[in-house]
């Protein structure tokens, strides 16, 4: 018997498999290992961002600042590398900035009881603004490590290649899975998302966990920023606009409840892959315009949100009680 909590995740992967099959039958070349692996490469930075977002949403919060953090990290990395800083200093520095920034947001959210939505909205302005202050123009990155990283990868028989981007994503995914399901931190995140009040009564360290969640999200966004700078070999202050919405959409499509407390990191990967496949499918089709991607993603989110509501009405999957439902 399938656990009802797993149904949304299974549906996401089933949809992915169905669309992949449909695409392979319709278009020559879509149904190849290469196209499949490219989904990982092209969406690696989005997936890493969305994994961080999963923890935030599981805790019942939201992080709107991730797109700006990606842009800021990218620009700062590019500028510092152009200024001749060694990579071993640049990368830890930008990752640390991400951590501190996210921790600061978590601090405001926990200690001042401010809504995550508005705090991270301010964070979004701040980081986008700082990115523009660092450099208004796109800064190219020329570094031999970037060239090696972009061509390196794990070769598979049949000419397919697991790129460095995809490998990095898989490492992050593995770490996130361990953190969510085999570490105390993960249990705390689920507990807070289920009910902050019960979590407090069960002696879950709310302050430490909340700050940790937002620090983790910004850290992963900063990592995604580095990955994005590898992907584009440049840093640009207006890059990755709207990525936060894609990340939230991926989390929702991946079956995580937006009210918090229920969902899986692995589902988010499915959401990212499904969104990437829609984009690939539309590119292969050729007659559909690129804005159809937005519309299809919107419809997917709509369907999954409605499905979530019906599911919680029927089974009472997490914490939904009659009172909170009317209030929501």
């Amino acid at each position: 018997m399938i656990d009802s909590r797993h149904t949304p995740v299974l549906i996401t992967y089933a949809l992915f498999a169905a669309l992949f099959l449909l695409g392979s039958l319709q278009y020559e070349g879509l149904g190849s290992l290469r196209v499949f692996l490219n989904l990982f490469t092209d969406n690696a930075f989005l997936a890493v961002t969305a994994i961080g977002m999963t923890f935030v949403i599981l805790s019942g919060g939201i992080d709107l600042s991730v797109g700006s953090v990606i842009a800021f990290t990218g620009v700062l990395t590019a500028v510092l590398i152009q200024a001749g800083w060694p990579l071993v200093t640049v990368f830890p520095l930008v990752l640390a900035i991400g951590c501190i920034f996210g921790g600061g947001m978590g601090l405001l959210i926990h200690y001042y009881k401010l809504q995550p939505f508005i705090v991270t909205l301010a964070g979004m302005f701040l980081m986008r603004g700082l990115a523009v202050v660092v450099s208004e123009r796109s800064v190219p990155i020329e570094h031999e490590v970037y060239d090696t990283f972009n061509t390196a990868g794990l070769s598979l028989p049949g000419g397919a290649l697991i790129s460095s981007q995809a490998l990095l994503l898989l490492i992050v995914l593995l770490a996130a899975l361990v953190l969510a399901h085999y570490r105390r931190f993960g249990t705390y995140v689920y507990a807070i998302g289920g009910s902050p009040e019960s979590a407090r009564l069960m002696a879950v360290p709310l302050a430490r966990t909340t700050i940790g969640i937002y620090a983790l999200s910004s850290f992963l966004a900063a990592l995604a920023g580095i990955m994005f700078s590898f992907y584009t070999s440049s840093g640009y202050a207006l890059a990755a606009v709207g990525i936060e919405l894609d990340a939230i959409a991926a989390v929702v499509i991946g079956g995580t409840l937006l009210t918090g407390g229920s969902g899986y990191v692995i589902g988010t990967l499915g959401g990212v892959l499904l969104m990437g496949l829609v984009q690939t499918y539309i590119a292969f089709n050729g007659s559909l315009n690129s804005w159809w991607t937005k519309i299809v993603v919107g419809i997917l989110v709509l369907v999954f949100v409605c499905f979530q509501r019906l599911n919680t009405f029927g089974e009472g999957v997490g914490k939904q009680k009659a009172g909170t439902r009317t209030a929501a």
Partner: protein
Amino acid sequence: MTYLRAIFSSLQRHRMLWPLLALAMIWAVIVVLNPAFFCFTVKDGRVLGGLVDILNRGAPIALIAIGMSLVIATGGIDLSVGAVMAIAGAVAANIISGGALPVWMIIAAGLGTGLFAGLVNGTLVAGLGVQPIVATLILLVAGRGVAQLINDGQIITFQNESFAFLGVGNILGLPTPVWLVAFLLAGLLTLTRKTALGLFIESVGANASASHYVGIPVKSVKLAVYAISGLCAALAGLVATADIQGADANNVGLWIELDAILAVVIGGASLMGGRYSLALAVISALIIQSLNTAIVLSGIPPKFNLVIKAVVIIAVLLLQSSIAQAQLASLRARLTA
């Protein structure tokens, strides 16, 4: 001294004080930077001057902030306003380029689109119980795609004197958008203060369950505020489209939802719902526009715009937070002791 303090604290309790003070401070800075800024001249029957410029440019934010106030008052949020602007603009532009219809039909079609979008949001929130952030996020993501679809990926430009009047015309010397803000504000103030709707909205925002039990139609109230917000967004979209005489699905109203939310928050509304002021939302829209103008006049490169806005939001949020207020009070007590 104690007398002064009493006056000060009674003023402090008045909600209009801080936003008006902030506006006055920004205007004072503007006057220092450019003493001639607030001079009025009348040319070709139009009143020209810095203040008119701020009012005119701030109009779209003000229109949206008015609708957003009501949504936020019920404890919700409407992220889709920018996308709705784009859709309404696209619908109007395509009707105009399609043939010679009377202007009221064009406007009605644009507003109808916004109303429909608002009803979709409202149905998701009130009918299905979806979280407002998520329900309106769907239209935010998909909406610009829909607008692109209507425009067939082009920027649709048009020549239509009577429709352009919405954006660039003027009545009694003042630009049409300023009048629209004034009429919308007056209309909604009447609707919310002369009927029970305003009370219902605050009640739903304060406690939806309790409101339900005392017999307030919670779902209808929520549906109504999202519908109104959709209408306001469509009106702002028509103004923006008429202003440039073209529908640009990618750029019209981009990020305006953030400015509108900022305006509502500066206006002292609680994002948790239950408290709002339409007049303050308009004043706050003017604060944001004046801030933009002041930054340009001060010679600070416009790239600092966003950083300054972010710092302002965080400061306002902290000032509103009761915990930060308590910390400040104890700090003051320690300093004076």
